[in-house]
């Protein structure tokens, strides 16, 4: 069955994701405990502080996780892409259950017992150590248990900021319309949560003189083993690559298939030249650009239209050459970033409908659709809704009026359209899902959408430091046409092939390969 191959193929990646998830949760819970324990004790001891402490930790808890990740990103020290930001955010989340339960547990100690400890002449610390903490242990443990379960779940979202973990599979599954990825990520996340829960159930103690329950302790031990064996195993299958001799070139990508494939092509092209490459793929939102500015990555694939409107904040233009030239100049002057030569294809916004709709309604252009007497159920990605060259301008240009269009995850709009839940969406022209789901792109007859030529954007400093990077980018000048890109996207999203293989196949077919790389 397909699952067998899938698991064999993804074994190493799943193990690494499991490892990353375990470390994220462990680090965050550990930190939260280190902060929450003293904070909870202080809250219990000082009634005046209690209100303030709980107000703050409660408030943190109410910030949606994705928003918290976003808020942390631009901060120095704490922020940036990768595991560090994720750990900070997860720590903040874990803080509430831990702090609250420490305070509740300490305050819950019977007053006569607490008073006895004071009357006997135990110091503050001795009272904590001998009386309050041991008697509060179960309540504190319950708090840690909640925190861990919470962290296991929330850590999946950390994949959006490049922290890795099992969430990367979930996001990728959504994006590529691949249930196996979704299920693998989801099931493993749930398993980790259940195992962690079993460990804590076993740690809990009935008050003495009750003996410890052996079955529970056994379950805890087994749970612990099942959590950490894959971690140990993952180090054998995929040891973290640390090559200190050479500073790696860090290649980033945005969080969609095409961007990953383009980044992978460049990464492998660099590796062919013997350059050490670090991959920081699947960065959501504006993250790739931010990371480039902060130096966290050296290069990533971008589109001229995005650079011009979304990043530089300029008004949309329709001439591809003009957009390219002006974006390139502005990037160099404003950011110290170099826009490489066009890769050879455009990924403009594409207004998509089902093939059946086209046939039934005899549609060809977007104007046809706007004139059709239909109640269009529309759904658009957050990106399209927010952008200057997106929803508002589109409706105005074509005279479209949608009744409450749904704003949702872009990859989900494809699925919803194919399933008949929506009638019209805004996708990407080169998306592999268009062919895979048998969708049709309507012609932009008014030329509303600006051109999105694919390019690599690199830090000028990185180009100077690593000459092979400039060389690799130059070698991909005009190397990928729209058809080639669509096929590669379809290979990923339709045929479920790994971007790594797709990129390798692409590079193997290039003419320079014949001349023989070193």
């Amino acid at each position, binding site marked *: 069955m397909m699952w067998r191959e899938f698991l064999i193929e993804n074994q190493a990646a799943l193990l690494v994701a499991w490892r990353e998830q375990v470390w994220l949760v462990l680090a965050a819970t550990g930190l939260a405990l280190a902060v929450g324990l003293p904070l909870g004790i202080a809250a219990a001891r000082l009634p005046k502080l209690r209100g303030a402490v709980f107000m703050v930790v409660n408030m943190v808890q109410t910030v949606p996780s994705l928003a918290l990740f976003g808020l942390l990103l631009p901060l120095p020290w704490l922020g940036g892409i990768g595991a560090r930001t994720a750990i900070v955010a997860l720590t903040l989340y874990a803080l509430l259950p831990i702090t609250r339960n420490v305070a509740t547990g300490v305050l819950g100690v019977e007053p006569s017992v607490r008073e006895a400890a004071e009357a*006997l002449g135990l110091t503050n610390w001795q009272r904590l150590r001998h009386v309050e903490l041991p008697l509060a242990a179960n309540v504190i443990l319950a708090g840690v248990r909640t925190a861990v379960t919470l962290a296991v779940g929330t850590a999946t979202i950390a994949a959006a900021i490049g922290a890795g973990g099992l969430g990367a599979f979930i996001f990728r599954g959504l994006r590529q319309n691949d249930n196996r990825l979704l299920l693998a990520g989801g099931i493993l996340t749930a398993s980790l949560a259940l195992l962690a829960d079993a460990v804590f159930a076993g740690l809990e103690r009935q008050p*003495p003189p009750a003996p410890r329950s052996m079955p529970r302790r056994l379950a805890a031990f087994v749970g612990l083993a099942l959590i950490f064996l894959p971690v140990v195993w993952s180090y054998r299958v995929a040891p973290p690559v640390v090559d200190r001799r050479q500073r790696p070139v860090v290649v980033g990508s945005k969080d969609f298939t095409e961007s990953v494939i383009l980044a992978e092509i460049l990464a492998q092209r660099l590796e062919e030249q013997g350059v050490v490459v670090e991959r920081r793929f699947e960065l959501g939102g504006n993250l790739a650009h931010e990371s480039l500015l902060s130096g966290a990555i050296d290069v990533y694939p971008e589109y001229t239209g995005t650079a011009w409107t979304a990043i530089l904040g300029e008004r949309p233009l329709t001439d591809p050459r003009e957009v390219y030239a002006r974006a390139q100049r502005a990037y160099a002057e404003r950011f110290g970033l170099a826009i490489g030569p066009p890769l050879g294809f455009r990924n403009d916004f594409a207004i998509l409908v089902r093939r059946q709709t086209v046939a039934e309604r005899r549609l060809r252009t977007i104007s046809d659709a706007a004139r059709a007497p239909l109640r269009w159920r529309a759904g658009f990605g957050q990106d399209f809704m927010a952008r200057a060259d997106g929803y508002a301008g589109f409706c105005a240009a074509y005279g479209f009026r949608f009744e409450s269009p749904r704003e949702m995850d872009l990859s989900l709009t494809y699925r919803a359209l194919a399933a008949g839940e929506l009638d019209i969406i805004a996708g990407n022209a080169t998306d592999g899902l268009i062919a895979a789901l048998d969708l049709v792109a309507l012609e932009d007859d008014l030329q509303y959408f600006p051109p999105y030529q694919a390019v690599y954007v690199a830090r000028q400093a990185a180009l100077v430091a690593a000459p092979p990077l400039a060389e690799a980018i130059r070698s991909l000048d005009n190397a990928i046409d729209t058809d080639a890109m669509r096929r590669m996207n379809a290979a990923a999203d339709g045929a479920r092939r790994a971007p790594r293989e797709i990129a390798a196949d692409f590079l193997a077919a290039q003419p320079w390969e014949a001349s023989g790389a070193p």
Partner: protein
Amino acid sequence: MPPPAPQAEDLQVELRQVCLTRGATVVLDGVSLSVRRGELVALLGASGSGKTSLLKLINRMLEPTAGAVAVEGRPTTEWDPIRLRRRIGYVIQDAGLFPHYTVARNIGLLLELEGRPAAQRRARVDRLLELVGLAPATYADRFPAELSGGERQRVGVARALALDPGLLLLDEPFSALDPVVRARLQQEFAALARELGKTALLVTHDLQEALRIGTRICLLANGKLVADAAPDDFLRLDAPEARAYARAAGLGAAPQG
């Protein structure tokens, strides 16, 4: 017989014009009391009259709003609270044993914190258990949940004696006992205190108990010390609160002795 003016070095505890306000309540209002070495003072008073509060002033768990408290001739404000408390054995109202520690660890905890070696601790715990009438072999390794109310109170007394303090503060230590056991334990305790040369302040609601073991009886009412007398004299006092106590205990009609 009025007590002779005490010598300063003999004074274990001295309260001078102590006032105490807790929240909006005036608990103590100008209480003066001197306790000499070897005395066993029974402190009577209605519920809420401030008996527990008075004990807590002595080991500095509370600070007086006005007036001064001195222990061994030194104002409590000059004592380090931890050092002071370890010199005073305190048996709290509900025993307050540590439920997660065995009887032996409850009694030996202070010895442990004072850094006494384990062997010495074990021996001392055994001796204290015997002193309060509990067989070490049976009780040392039990947890408080496995004890009766009376046994728990005995362990509380043993724990208070661990560091061999000269002064004992006991807050209704025999309240949870049936009358027979209670009478026996009171006698045993009085004998023990005499034998060990301890000074003790013992809070009780029970005039019979006070008469049985006190060398002196004090009565708190409305924030004041309304009576302070030897047991023999207490029943003859004119203070209405003292008379009410005597009547309630069925001793009011006792003929003048």
